[in-house]
C-alpha cells in the first residue's frame, strides 16, 4: 500500500487537526517523555536515597569535575540548532528549498559539534581521569542520561542528513508532504533540545 492513497498523510484530520505523521510523532514523544521521566525518577531516587557519606554517597560539585562552561556552551549550540531547524521549516513554508537545505545543514553541523564537544572535552578527558560510569552513581547516571541523549542527537542527525540528501527528492513531487516531514523531524529535534534543557541544570548545576 503506497502511503499516497492513505488519507490524512498531508491534510490535517478534521478531529485531531493534525496529519497522521504529526500525531504519530507527538505520540512517540509522549513515550519519550516516559523514557526520560523514568531516568529522572531514578536520578531523584538514587540521589535522595544515597548515604550521606562514605561509599555510595552522592558526589558534590567539586568531586564531579563537570564544567558548567562546556555544558552551557553546548546548551547554546543546541538552542541555535533548534532555531535553525524551525527556520528550515519556515523557509519551506515560504517556498524555498534552497534556504531550508542550508538551515538543515547548519542544524546538522551544530548537532555534530555538540557531540564532538561532548566527546572530546568531557567524555574522553573524564574517562582518562578515572571518572568512568562505575566511579559512582552520579557518573553512572551522567553517562547513561547524556549518552542516551547523545544517541538521540545522532539519530536526529541521520534523519536530517537523509532529508538534506535523498529525502529532498520528495519536495519536487509533493512539497507539502516534504514540509510536513521536516516539521515532524523538527518536533523530534526540539524535544531533544528540551531534554537537554532539563539535563543541563540537573547534572551541571544542582
Amino acid at each position, binding site marked *: 500500500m503506497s502511503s499516497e492513497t492513505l*488519507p490524512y498523510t498531508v491534510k490535517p484530520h478534521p478531529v485531531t487537526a493534525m496529519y497522521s505523521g504529526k500525531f504519530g510523532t507527538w505520540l512517540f514523544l509522549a513515550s519519550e517523555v516516559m523514557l526520560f*521521566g*523514568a531516568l529522572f525518577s531514578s536520578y531523584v*531516587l*538514587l540521589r535522595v*536515597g544515597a548515604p550521606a557519606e562514605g561509599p555510595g554517597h552522592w558526589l558534590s560539585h567539586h568531586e564531579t569535575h563537570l564544567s558548567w562552561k562546556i555544558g552551557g556552551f553546548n546548551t547554546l549550540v543546541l538552542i541555535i540548532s533548534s532555531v535553525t531547524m524551525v527556520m528550515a521549516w519556515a523557509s519551506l513554508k515560504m517556498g524555498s528549498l534552497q534556504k531550508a537545505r542550508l538551515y538543515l545543514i547548519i542544524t546538522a553541523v551544530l548537532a555534530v559539534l555538540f557531540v564532538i564537544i561532548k566527546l572530546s572535552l568531557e567524555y574522553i578527558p573524564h574517562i582518562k581521569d578515572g571518572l568512568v560510569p*562505575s566511579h*559512582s*552513581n552520579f557518573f*553512572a547516571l551522567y553517562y547513561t542520561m547524556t549518552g542516551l541523549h547523545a544517541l538521540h542527537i545522532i539519530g536526529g542527525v541521520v534523519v536530517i542528513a537523509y532529508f538534506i540528501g535523498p529525502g529532498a527528492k520528495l519536495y519536487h513531487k509533493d512539497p507539502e508532504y516534504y514540509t510536513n516531514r521536516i516539521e515532524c523531524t523538527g518536533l523530534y529535534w526540539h524535544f531533544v533540545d528540551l531534554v537537554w534543557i532539563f539535563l543541563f541544570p540537573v547534572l551541571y548545576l544542582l
Partner: protein
Amino acid sequence: MGEDHHTPGFWRRYVFSIDHKVIGVQYMVTGLTFLMFGFCLIMLMRWQLAYPGEAVPVIGKIFGENNMPGGIMLPEFYNSLGAMHGTIMVFLGVVPILVGGFGNYVLPLQVGAPDMAFPKLNMMSYWVYATGGITMLVGFFVKGGAANSGWTSYPPLSNLATTGQTVWLIGMVFLITSSLLGSVNFIVTVAHLRSDGLSMFRLPFFVWAQLVTSFLLLLAFPPLEAAGVLQLMDRLAGTSFFMPSGLVVSGVPQTVAGGGSPLLWQHLFWFLAHPEVYVLILPALGIVAEIIANNTRKPPWGYRTMVYATIFLGFMSFIVWAHHMFMTGMGTKLSAFFATTTMIISIPSVVILTALLISLYQASIRFTVPMLFALAFLPMFAIGGLTGLPLGLPASDIALHDTYYVIGHFHYVVAPGTIFAIFAGVYYWYPKVTGRMMNATLGKLHFWFSFVFINIVFMPMFWVGLAGVSRRLYDQTVYAHGKAVQDLTITSSWGAWLLGLAQIFFIINFFISIRRGKKVSNNPWDATTLEWAAPSPPPHGNFATVPVVYRGPYEYSVPGQDKDFLPQHIAAEA
C-alpha cells in the same frame, strides 16, 4: 521461506511486505511458534517438578552435559527454562499474537481502512520484534545458558547472573521498541483512518480494547526500557544502579561503588508489568466480545459500559503496580493505598465480565468452535480474576505471596483466559484470512481436550499454593509442606503433557485447512462488523469500495428485518 531471488517482488510481497495483512500473518505465525516453543519449555520443566532428580526419558540426553547431564536437569537449566518460559510466553507469544497478529490484521479492516496509518513503520515493528525474538533465543547458546533470574529479572541476582541476562536485556530493548512503534501506529490508525460514519461509539469493542492497549504499551513500556538500559549499564559498565553498598557475594565483599537501590528495578519493572497484564487481557476480552456478540445473535449487553470500564481499567492499571511488592518492606500507608487501588481495579473487570454474561440472556446461542472457546474464557477468566483478590489484599498476601497460588492465579487469566481467546480468534477470523473454514470436528476435539486438561494443569496449583509451596522451586519435596502436595504437582505435570498432545488437533487443523478447508463466502458467520464486508482474503487495499458506516457494530436480530443481522455498511431498508 524459499531462496526465490528470481521472482521480482517476492521479498516485497511476503517478507518485507508493508501490507498490514501480511504483517499480521507474519506476527501470528511467529507468535504461535513462540507460544508453542514456550510451552515446550514448561513441559520439560514439569518433568523435573513432578519427578525431581530423575532423568528425563527419551529426550533427556539431547540437551547436553551442560544442561542435563545424564538426562537429569540441572538447577541452572531449570531456572533458565523458567525465565525464558515467562519471557517468551508474554513478550514473544501472547502480546505479538494479540496486538501484532489480530490487531494488525483485523483492526484496519474493522475500521474500514485500506491499511495501517504508517505501513513502513508497521513492517519495521515486525522486523524489530523478530530481531528481539532471535536475540532471546541466542541466549540459550551463550556461556552459562539463557537468562536464569526469572522473567522479572530482579537485581542484584540478575546483575550477578551469567551472560544470558545481557542477551535477555538486549532482546527486551528490541521488543519494547517494536511495541512502541506498533502502538503509535494503532492509535493513529484508529484516530485517522475510520470510515465515514464510523464514530468512536460505533467502533467494535475489539478496536476499543486495542486502542486502550496501545496507550498502555506506549506509556508503560518506556520506563522498562529505561530500567533495561540501567541494568545493562550495571552489567556491562560496572555501575551500581541496583547494587546497594556493602554487598557480600559468596563471602567476598563487592567492589562496586554502591549506593544503588534494588527496589528501583522492581518499581520500574512493575510500572510496566502491571499494565502489561491488561495488555494481555484487554485484546482477549475484545476478541471474546466480538465472538459472543456474533454467536448470541444479539447486541452485547452494555456496550458503552464496557468501553468506559475498559478505559477506566487502562487508567487504573498504572497505579496498582506496587501490589506486586507488598513483601518488600512496605509501610501501612502505602500498602493500604495500593490495596485500595487494587480493589478498585477489580470492579471494572467484574463489570465487563458481568456484561458479557448478561449478553447470553435472551440470546440465540450458536455453539460454534470459536464460541466454545469464548464461552470457556468467561469462567476461566472469572477464576483468574477472583483468585486475584487474596493476593491483592496485603494480609492474605503474606501467606500466598510468591507461592503457586500466584502461578495458578495469573495462569488462569492468561492461559485458559487469553490463550483460549487467541484460539477463539484464530477459528473466528481464519475464514477471513484464507477464505476457508477450519474443520469443526477437529476444533471441537481441540476445545474439549484443551478445556479439561488446562484445568488439570492449573487447578491443583491453588492447593499447592495454599499449602505454602514457593514458586520457582527446582524441587519442592525438600519441604514438608511441599512433599505433602507432590502428588498434585504430578497431576499438574500430566495435565500439561496431555494439554500439549491436545494441541496436535489444532496444528493439524490449522495447516490442513489452508488447502483443504471448506470454501466459504465473505461473511460465513453472518457477522455485522466491517471486516466481513471485505473479500476473503482481502486484496491489497482491502475494500473494493470504501465502506460507509450507518450504525453501531452489533445490530443482530433487529426486529422487522429479514435476516438476523444488519451489517454496519449496509444502508438501512425500511
